[in-house]
Every structure is written in C-alpha cells, then in structure tokens.
C-alpha cells in the first residue's frame, strides 16, 4: 500500500480524463459532427458567398429590392401585431368553460394543423381573379366585378398577410390560452370583490400576468414571420412584377447558379432584424429561468 502511494506521489501529476467526461464527449460527438456539417458549414459558406461587396451592389441596384424591404417591414409589423392582438382577444374566448367552446377550439386548431402547401394553394385558387370562387360569388350575388386579388400589389400583400395570420393564429391563441389559464382564478374573484370593472380586471390582473409571455411570443413570432416563405410565394409568387416579394422569397428568386451570391446577400439583409430579436429572446428566456 505504502509503495503504491509513494509511486503516485513521486510521478508527475498526469491528467487522466474521468470516465464521466469521456462518455460525455463520446455521446456529444455525433451531434457536434452533424451540427458542424449541416449548420455551421452551410451558414459560413452562405456568408462567404454573399459577403462580397459586389453581390450587395448588384442587390441594391435591383429596383425590386427597396420594394421588398418595404413589403417585408409591412408584412412583419402588420401580421405579427394584428395576429397577436387577435390571439390575445380570442384567448379570452377560448378559456370559457362551455362544451361548445371546447369543440369550436378543436375546429379552430385545424387551420394550424393542416399542411401549408395545399391550404395556401386552395386559397390561391379561391382568389383567382378570373375563375376563382370569391369573384364568382361577388358577381353572382352583388353583380360586382371583383378586384384582381392576386394581380394587384396591395390586394396581394394584404391577402398574404391574412393568409399568414389565418395559418398561425391558432398556434398563438393556444399559447396565450395557456398563459391565461396559468392566472389563478382567485385573483379575479378578489378583484370582483374589490370592485374592478372588466377593463380593470384586464389591466391589473390579466395584462401584468400575460405581458412576459406576450412579448416573448411577439419576438418569436416576428422571427418566424420574417422567414415565412409559403404565405407569399404560394399565393402571389412574389408577383405581380415582383411587387409583393419579401426577403424570404427574394432570396429564392435569385437562386440561379449565376446569382446565388445575390440570393445569399438578400438573406443576409434580414440578419440586422433577426439577430437583435434572437438576442432579446434569449435574454428574456434566460431571465424567466432565473425567476
């Protein structure tokens, strides 16, 4: 025993990996490889492709780029805020304890659960200016010549925003329903006894409790909305004349072998908006953890 101890003491201290650490590395290694290969490499490659001043020059010279920036700003601001406000209101309805409300909520969720592509394509068909259902009915019932829903910029962008809201509203309503259900009922009863009106109940109990989840939802939804390709591309295809392009669709528009760098540059243009949002989101989430 003594000899062994002496041996160890005499030898220079050699750092040996503990078994726990060894297995940690073994188990995490496959993920690191996949992450490096399919996330880090493509992202860096994209940056490299789109990072030359020349690609940005080409991008800014394209007249549709400025329109696209405007469209993106309008799309994100209107879609996110309108959607979240409506979701906030609807969440108050869907917590009502009636059986028919439960059933209605199931039907409501379907819009979100349906696959995007067939849904959006069927809406596109309905709004076809010439033979679409909507214009046909407008003419049949009111003898009105319906507008070119998908062939005029404002109608097209508005429809794309509505499409996006229709598709993602159930999800955010569900999130806010969960936030509402977490508010103890006692608080409302106490407020009733204290003499609060409906508005005061919302202002002093509901909103303070929902502010944090609401703001987190707004941030997350902004990031997702910025990346919403389907609602615009499948409905208007960015047209007419590229007047309804958003950054998410513009990148794809350039996806030709000779313009791939410009496409990447367009995607990079969204980063100044996305990165701060991701930053604030992570900060918010870590603060929730601390609490």
């Amino acid at each position, binding site marked *: 025993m003594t000899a062994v101890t002496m041996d160890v003491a005499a030898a220079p201290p050699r750092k040996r990996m503990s078994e726990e650490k060894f297995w940690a590395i073994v188990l995490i290694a496959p993920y690191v490889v996949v992450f490096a290969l399919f996330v880090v490499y493509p992202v860096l490659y994209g940056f490299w492709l789109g990072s030359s001043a020349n690609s940005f020059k080409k991008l800014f010279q394209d007249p549709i780029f400025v329109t696209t920036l405007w469209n993106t700003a309008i799309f994100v601001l209107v879609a996110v805020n309108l959607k979240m406000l409506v979701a906030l209101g609807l969440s108050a309805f869907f917590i009502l304890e009636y059986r028919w409300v439960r059933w209605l909520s199931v039907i409501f969720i379907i819009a979100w659960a349906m696959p995007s592509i067939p849904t959006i394509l069927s809406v596109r068909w309905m709004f076809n200016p010439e033979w679409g259902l909507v214009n046909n009915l407008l003419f049949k019932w009111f003898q009105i010549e319906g507008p070119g829903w998908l062939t005029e910029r404002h109608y097209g962008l508005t429809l794309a925003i509505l499409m996006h809201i229709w598709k993602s509203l159930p999800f955010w309503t569900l999130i806010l329903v969960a936030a509402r259900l977490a508010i*103890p009922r*006692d*608080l409302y*009863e*106490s*407020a*009733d*006894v*204290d*003499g*609060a009106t409906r508005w*005061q109940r919302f202002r*002093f*109990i509901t909103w*303070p*409790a929902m502010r944090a989840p609401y703001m987190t939802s707004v941030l997350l939804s902004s990031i997702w909305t910025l990346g919403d390709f389907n609602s615009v591309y499948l409905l208007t295809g960015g047209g007419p004349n590229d007047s309804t392009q958003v950054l998410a669709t513009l990148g794809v528009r350039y996806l030709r072998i000779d313009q791939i760098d410009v496409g990447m540059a367009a995607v990079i243009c969204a980063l100044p908006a996305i990165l701060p949002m991701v930053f604030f989101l992570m900060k918010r989430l870590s603060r929730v953890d601390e609490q």
Partner: protein
Amino acid sequence: MASVELHDVRKVYGGSITAIHGVDVEIPDGEFVVLVGPSGCGKSTLLRMIAGLEDITGGEVRIGAKRVNELPAKDRDIAMVFQSYALYPHMTVRENMGFSLRLRKAPKDEIDRGVANAAQILGLTPYLDRLPRHLSGGQRQRVAMGRAIVRNPQVFLFDEPLSNLDAKLRVQMRTELKALHQRLKTTSIYVTHDQVEAMTLADRIVVLHDGKVEQIGAPLDLYDRPANQFVAGFIGSPAMNFLGGTVRRSNGAAAVAMVDGTRLPLPAGAKGGDGQQVVYGVRPEHLALGDSGMGFPLVVSVVEPTGADTLVFGTVGGSEVCAVFDERHAFKPGETVHLAPKGDRVHVFNADDGAAL
C-alpha cells in the same frame, strides 16, 4: 358594520346536484360566526354566495337591511380573505392594500392613510414596498387581511385563511385574528374545517354537513350539548367515543348494554326507554380511571404521552375508545383498565337518526 341574514338559502348545480339545502342563519351586527364542517359540506359555497361570487339558486341573503341576491360582489360592501390570499403578484404590499380604494377613485391621501393605518395594526409598515413573492407565508396572510381592513367593509368574509400556514404560525395568527376582531368589531363570517379554530375564534358556530345546518350555537354549547351524533363527533378533539348498545333499566339504575354484554353506566336522568337502541357517547377527556366494581373495562392497545396529558387508546366490547388523562400513566398494551364517565357527562343518541335524546 351590518347584520347578515340567510333565509332558506339554497344552491343547486346543473339542476340536480344540491350543494346547500335551505340554510337559515341570522348573524347580528359585530358577531364573529364560524361556518365549520368536513370537506364538501358546502361551507365555502355558502360563503361565496354571501360574497356574490356564486349565484344563489333560492332563498334570500340580506346584508344590513338590504337584499343582496342580485347585487354583484363589488356592491355588497364586503371584504374577503381567500385561502390562497389572492394577492396581486405584480403590485407591492402598499398597492395591494390600497387597490380597492384606488378602484373607488378615493383621493390619494385617503388611500395612504388607510394603508398606513392597516399596516400599523398588522405590523406591515416595513414591508409596504415589497412584492408579495418576497414575503413569508405569515406576512402574505397579514397583507390579505390588511387589504380587507383598508376597505372598512360592512362584513369580513374569511375562506380558510389559515390553512396554508404551518401549525405554529396558525395558532399565532388565530390569536391575532381574534384580537383584531375585538378591536374592529366588524361582523365576520369565517369558514374552516378545523374545529379548534372554530371553537377558539367564534362567538357562534354553524356546523354544516352535506349542505345542511346541523346545529348553531356558542362553542361551549355545541361542546356540552351537541344536537346530534354528527356535531358531537365533529366538535372536540380527540373526537367523542361512540359505543352502540341497548338501554337497560332495572331497579332505578340504567345502563347501555353492548352486544358482548359490556354494561356502560348511564347517569340518573339520562333519557332512553328500556330496550331502546342507542349510541352511547363520552368524550375522551370525560373518562376517569375507576375500580373494577364500576365503569367498564378498556383493553389498552396504545399509550401516547404528550407531556401535558396522556392519550390511551384501546377497545371496549370490540369498539375503539380513546381516553385522555391529565396524569401520567404507563399502561402496557393488552392490560385491562376500568374507566368510568365523570359525573353525568355522557351523551345518548338515537341509534336510528343520531339525534340527541
């Protein structure tokens, strides 16, 4: 301050489930009344009906001279302390306490004065700028009471306000509550399932069971003269012992004979005709050690010394019986001791409906 009257108050859920079956209670101005009963007896429902948080299916609730059935909670001039305290988590103690006055658009100096006064009564002055989550359970409980005091309501309603506190704090807050009522003298209705709380706090107790009033009375009246077996078993701790048997009268002496032949002596004047099936009730603290010539034999199973007194559990004629002695005893399990009720402190109940004879 005001009186509260309940006349034939009923609550039916979904047209078929009756939670409250016609309750009549009159609570004079300034009285502290405790609604007590086991879980599901309807006591909280009744309180919430008085508060206006639950619809009244039938009957009438009056606060002061006014019928309030149709009035919303906010117009009933009541303050309620909830079991969970229901403090607004985003408001400081000061804001929580002044909230009702703020909603009533009271002037700021009036709110400040009210809050400062209540905080001083409850020892909350150093905590006024803290959020509820930075307070201990006892402090939160005080804030909930402070919120009620600030309103200066006609009636205080308490829904099991002490049940979330640990045992020691509960006793302390109980005393504070009683002192507070003696100081403010506001009519108070207090719901609890804890009969000790009921006994110590109440001017009068309303014992509820399955949505019906079993008995209304002063705490010691209920203890000394329970109207039925339910009240007798519910009030008092440890609970009253119940032993079934048949009344036997001969030569002026009376006893209850159990199935195995054990005879339980009845005091002179005890009711119950010869041959009547009854339940013999005696409180653990009303049993004394006797000699073999009197009383009845108890086969000891467990002895629990608490320091202040000794609890002895065992069986009499096959039924579980508990006895409490002031003195210390070291009986062994299996040992037989003789017990006799002290004086005439025996209760006899009709075996059919449990009514006191």
